[in-house]
């Protein structure tokens, strides 16, 4: 049996990715996570001195905290199995990546384990966030200097 024949058998038997179901679940749960976040923005605006411009930070921090707690309790992983991108894309997913790696590294101590493991998965997000911010700002500066666009 050659590779091509095998590929056929494998494709036939392997259950297909449930695209529609996955997308729907990601939409509903991802939307729900953002709606919960939105409730926190109202909470911080009404009860604290935050405006719509400044409320982003405390909201994100709160969501990160909740996700850290759920990660530690092992609940986040179970929700994520259903939600897929619905829990990976929100900032809670970033928190989950950092916290789960940190907990995992504990047996190697706080410096070699927790410290250096923490960004094992989230590190690429930080790299590409900072690098793309740099290049976008640079391109914008060049375009402004050339007079193509305004600030």
């Amino acid at each position: 049996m050659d590779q091509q024949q095998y590929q056929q058998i494998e494709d036939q038997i392997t259950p297909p990715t449930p695209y529609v179901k996955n997308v729907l679940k990601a939409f509903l749960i991802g939307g729900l996570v953002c709606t919960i976040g939105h409730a926190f923005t109202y909470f911080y605006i009404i009860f604290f001195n935050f405006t719509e411009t400044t409320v982003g930070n405390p909201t994100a921090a709160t969501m990160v905290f909740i996700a850290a707690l759920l990660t530690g309790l092992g609940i986040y992983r179970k929700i994520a199995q259903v939600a897929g991108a619905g829990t990976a894309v929100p900032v809670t997913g970033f928190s989950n990546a950092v916290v789960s790696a940190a907990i995992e590294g504990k047996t190697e101590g706080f410096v070699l384990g927790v410290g250096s493991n923490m960004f094992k998965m989230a590190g690429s997000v930080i790299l590409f966030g900072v690098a793309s911010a740099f290049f976008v700002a640079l391109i914008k500066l060049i375009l402004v200097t050339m007079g193509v666009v305004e600030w």
Partner: protein
Amino acid sequence: MKKMVVAIFLIPVFLIGCNQEQTIEVKDSNEEQSETVKEVIRNSDEIYTGNAIFIEDQLLVAVQAKPWLDYKKRKIEKKLQKEVEEQFPDLEVLVSADYKLYWETQKLLDEGDEQKVSEEVEKLKKLAKEET
């Protein structure tokens, strides 16, 4: 689950469909000023509610744009700022579409103590300038 999804999408369509009246409230002793500022706000179709506070030489206008037009609320804010400034060249005007200012001005409408209102308006102006 499908029914729930459909419902979630239908309610907003329904809400957008029935356009409610604008509610604009003003805190001022001067009837003429009140009417003028109401008129200016009413001319902006994008706004569904607003509060205006006159205190000493200050005018604080806090408005809320219709949610589906929120994406351009910074432009709405700027446009209204210009229009209000034209009507009240002697006053120090601040127009904001921020919910925080709308919420706080709502509470100020019934506040009797002038001193307190003045302090609060100062505080809100400072808050509105913060960026992070």
